[in-house]
């Protein structure tokens, strides 16, 4: 038995008997759901770019964003979050380990470069989502930021953005179909399916589905 057959048999053997609903297949596995994801992606991306842009504002000396004045605004935000230790009345942070982490960053003066990291991270995540380039990776880093802001005690729009990003991550194969991922993913590939650029393609790879075909579609049998 060759490796591909064995993998296929194992997949069938251990597959759950509960079938996937049609809507799940449509949204997460069918490229025809691309218009839906375009709307979701653009909406989420705009939120991130707008947030990053408001934090950038280095030209606005009176009302600068995070990066203005050596990250003073971010330091102020951290000061607010760290004002009361976890367990105290009105504490913003619940977990000791996150409190210690944030305190370490603030006391070490790391807000100066962290302000740039957050600002450009937000803009990069937003652009990745809007243009559909490494969509799921962008959404993943978006969730990391949402997660961090929430741990620091800021709810705001973070739960909604987090939930939306999770959906985009689940739809990583279809969310960027109407975007750059349609061309980038087949070129770069994945760790489990070689692309055109990374890794040398062989005919048997196409046959076994180990390489994404140039068209980006499902390999023919």
């Amino acid at each position, binding site marked *: 038995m060759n490796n591909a057959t064995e993998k296929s048999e194992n997949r069938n053997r251990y597959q759950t008997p509960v079938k996937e609903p049609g*809507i799940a*297949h449509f949204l997460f596995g069918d490229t025809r759901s*691309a*218009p*839906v994801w375009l709307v979701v992606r653009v909406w989420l991306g705009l939120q991130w770019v707008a947030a990053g842009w408001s934090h950038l504002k280095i030209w606005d000396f009176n009302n600068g964003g995070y990066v203005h004045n050596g990250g003073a605004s971010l330091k102020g935000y951290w000061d607010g979050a760290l004002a009361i230790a976890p367990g105290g009345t009105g504490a913003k942070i619940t977990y000791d380990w996150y409190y210690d982490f944030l305190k370490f960053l603030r006391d070490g003066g790391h807000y100066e470069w962290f302000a740039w990291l957050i600002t450009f991270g937000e803009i990069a995540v937003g652009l990745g989502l809007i243009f559909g380039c490494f969509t799921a990776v962008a959404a993943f880093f978006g969730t990391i930021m949402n997660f961090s802001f929430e741990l620091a005690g800021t709810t705001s729009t973070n739960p909604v953005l987090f939930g939306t990003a999770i959906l985009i991550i689940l739809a990583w194969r279809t969310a960027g179909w109407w975007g750059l991922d349609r061309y980038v993913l087949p070129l770069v590939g994945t760790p489990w399916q070689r692309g055109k650029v990374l890794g040398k393609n062989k005919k048997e790879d196409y046959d076994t589905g180990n390489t994404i075909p140039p068209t980006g579609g499902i390999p023919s049998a």
Partner: protein
Amino acid sequence: MTNDMMLRRFSTLNLTFTGGLGVLGGLWLIVSPYLFDYNNLPTAAKFVENGSNATLLGLITGIITIAISIFLIATEKMPQMQLYRNIGGWLLVVMGVFLMAAPYLFNYSMLRDPLWNLQLTGAVFVLIAGYVMQELTLRDKKTS
């Protein structure tokens, strides 16, 4: 509902139908600033100018949308215009994305009514025109 059932339900959508909805969408873009009274939104005075910008944007995008939509309807029985009809359909998709981005591009994302109105209208444009264009593209690929 299975995937095929869902697709069959939408199979009656075509460019002429999209054009009809586009006319309604364009009218909505023109009328809605007055329905929501963008120029008298309960916000700080400095945002009033942004409210009138949103009204102007609704007017311009509405007229463009109606023009494209009427073209889609008028050229229904002209096979030689199919390429331009397809371009018109895709332009409605682009218009939808533009409408979603417009509140941020023109700096009135802080005005709740224009923000939600334009984003929802844009989303509907992308969903309907996008779905129809995708179906047409797939059909063209099958028949060629």
